[in-house]
């Protein structure tokens, strides 16, 4: 396993660590904001992994 792939564990850990209604962020209860934030962050993390994953190089195909 490449060290880069360890990044993919972050969402599994991060997404579970919030359980409160207040403060409201952008109109959302904090837990919902936290989950939405991690959905976006997960996309960013996966984009980074995709970008640096040698399996996705054109020449590697």
């Amino acid at each position, binding site marked *: 396993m490449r060290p880069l*792939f360890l990044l*993919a564990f972050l*969402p*599994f850990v991060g*997404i*579970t660590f919030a*359980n*409160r*209604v*207040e403060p*409201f962020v*952008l*109109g*959302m*209860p904090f*837990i*919902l904001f936290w*989950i*939405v934030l*991690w*959905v976006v962050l*997960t996309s960013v993390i*996966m984009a980074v*992994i*995709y970008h640096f994953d040698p*399996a996705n190089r054109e020449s590697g195909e």
Partner: protein
Amino acid sequence: MNIALIVIFAFLALALFLGIRARRGQDMDLEQWTVGGRGFGTLFVFLLLAGEIYTTFRFLGGSGWAYGEGGPAFYILSYGCLAYVMSYWLLPAIWRYATEHRLHSQSDFFVKKYDSKGLGLFVSLVAVVAMVPYLALQLQGLGIIVSVASYGTISPLVAATIGTVAVTTYVMISGIRGSAWTAVIKDALVLVVVVFMGLYLPLTLCGGIGDMFREIQAQKPGFLALPAEGYSIIGTLARVLVPVVALVSLWFSQQSGQGVVLLLLLGHHNRRPLPFPAPDAGRHQHRYSGPVRKLRRAGCRKLRHRGLRPEARAECLRSVPWPTSA
């Protein structure tokens, strides 16, 4: 006949029309039927994958749970997101392997990869057994939605029956292309309805989404978070991870679901062509290396020297089978 009935039947007709028309311009063979000739583009696959998570659950189970339980319903957002993380390593690898070995279904994959017909058969059986409650739930949901939307004129049973007949018709005729094209309408419709309701109801009832959440917090403090009891971290993890695994396996079974039905219909597990028009061998030409193609052509050229007309030569080229493994 009320306006709701007209709208419902118009969309049914549209789905049937698109589903059946999806076959047009395709020579239907098993590869077309199960995996669309492996020709779906990135955007189309993205739309299908994105749309796949929108089922009747979004209207019934999801909203019902959010109303009844509050905060725990937010897990719906997390599990889809986490499942896609896992699929990054799983699905492309399976896709590459299946393309390389020209596999059609999930059981094909297990037969080839583990070199075991028994395992493939077992996987097919599990997929069928797993699909039954899933389909039953979806059809029941469809029945309830249509029954409510038609103001009770169509009973849930009649709605589910019509739905089953329509789906079976276009899937039998057009295979994966049929379900792909009807999925496009479904995804667009679900998205429009969900976004509309998600904005319209809070805006008209509470004055805004933020105001709605504040009002809920004022009336039922803590309802929007996970309750202190009954939802421990482990329990929540399990609640999130079980659907993640389930969704990943659902992709598997949806990929193979139609293949499985086909295998049941044929009653035999092999690459026998469908009872549809014969596949056009010429289409597969690009899959074979130059020497193989040259050999075939050379063989048929010899026939021409023996006085065969060009049409006969073309006929000969068509009749020579391509090697089964390239």
